[in-house]
């Protein structure tokens, strides 16, 4: 695999990882954490 392909592959995995992170944070917000944290009640 040459440098060009390595970079291309790194780009794709980075994008996929970041999109997954966004999806997880979006979904996790519905857990309503601030309601359950005793320190914030």
């Amino acid at each position, binding site marked *: 695999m040459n440098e060009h392909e390595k970079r291309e592959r790194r780009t*794709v995995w980075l994008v996929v990882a970041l999109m997954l992170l966004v999806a997880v944070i*979006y*979904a996790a917000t519905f857990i309503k954490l601030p309601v359950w944290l005793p320190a914030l009640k």
Partner: protein
Amino acid sequence: MARFIIRCGIFKGEDMTEATAAVAHDHPHAGIMRWLTTTNHKDLGILYMSFGGIMFFVGGLFIMAVRAELLYPGLQLLSPGMYNQLFTLHALIMVFGAIMPFATGLNNYLIPLMIGAPDMALPRVNNWGFWILPFAAVLLLIPFFLQFFGTGSGATGLGWMMHNTTLDIQSGIGIDFAIFTILLLGVSSLTGAINVVVTALNMRAPGMVLMKMPLFVWAWLITAFMLILAMPVFSAAATMLLTDRHFGTHFFDAANGGDPILLQHLIWFFGHPEVYIVLLPAWGLIPHILATFSRKPVYGYRAQVYALCAICFLSFIVWSHHMLTSGLPLAAEVYFMYATMAISVPTSVLVFCWLGAIWRGAMTFETPMLFALGFVAHFGMGALTGLVLPDVAVNAQHHNSYVLVAHFHYTFFGGGIFGMMAALYYWLPKFTGHMFDEKLGRLHFWLTVISFNITFIPQWFAGLDGMPRHVADYALRFSAMNFISSVGAFLLGLTQLLLVYIVVRCVRGGPKATGQVWEGAQGLEFTLPSPPPYHTFETPPEVK
């Protein structure tokens, strides 16, 4: 999977450093098609900046109407409902429509040039991210104009963070349109942020290790991570609000077991990092400008990188200082007070580095330098008052008063917009190939400084005297301060027309700018001619 995604055509599959030289020599379309279909980072940068500039004047027009109403006590021009819509639209447009897109335009144009890359990593996504914005703006403004034709109850009037809401405060389509606007802006911001992260981490020229990356790129890399962590929470909160309003859920509905304070928590969990999302790009570009006009290298590079990272971290653990009067437990109040004050430590590191950059420098005071120094002075005033406001006892007095309005305008305008103007003047000759009229630039600076302070200094005094914000009418004792503030605001608005004239004149012609542009300028972008060719760094430069 990587191959599959590339073949789906989401990205330009070509390698951005090598094969681009052979493949991507496509010349731009002519006319409107160039701007609709472009994936070139410079074109998109110009589109983003133009959009930000136009929205700056739209948001400015709304606040002119607000200040006209506040010129004298009593209701003269606007109903309270219309007043609420106008200041809300002003805030949403200025933050999400003007400052953020303008900063995104700068990153699009400059990051590839600064790191020696031929383009952003995801050019097609970049085009998509931009063209979402005009639709989002139209969506936000449609209900405002529809009300004049007897349809709907107008645009959202709940303030820029929409947390003043209980579900019954405002019905109608305005909030729904604002929610969809937020969701669209979220998609646009996140695509842009992912693009910046991938570009900065994966597209740097050989030899440009992270600790050689220009501070502007560092600032944007950190900003992008903040967007990725904070924007999904805002989008989710907007979705929850939408389902509460129309689909029978009760996330925020106290009458049915929900928690209205939850909405404040979620929105401020985004809202406080958002303050730094607006400011960090300016903090990243100011050191370049100060160094250039002081004929010195950037001062305290590593310290500034670490300070920016520290501010990013701290910005996520202080959100409830916006909610100190919402009935938090004492322990939480004390925690948020001290955590917020802790931000002053890395912020002070930045300020001292900026001052270190000009210390004993061979300074000259061209327009970009004037705006950069204006940024340091005015942002300093906003930051210092930001140190006082989270004090629990003080906050109880000043919450929702005009002190708050003055404070965040000194940070957002004195910090964000002064920074953007410094950047615009600094790189305008690079963008256009022409020098702007220096005398007019300086006149623009001084008129902006004077009118800005005439507008906002009286608001400190009105606030300290107890004037609440978000009200269309006020007690007689606030008359003088409001009159002065309104006159200042009109002058500030008019002054910005001078900026338009300077920019248009510079675009149309003027003395030729050299590649170096400014005597002390450093960085890869200044090794290119002005304006840079359509495709740049097809062969990556070697950075030592």
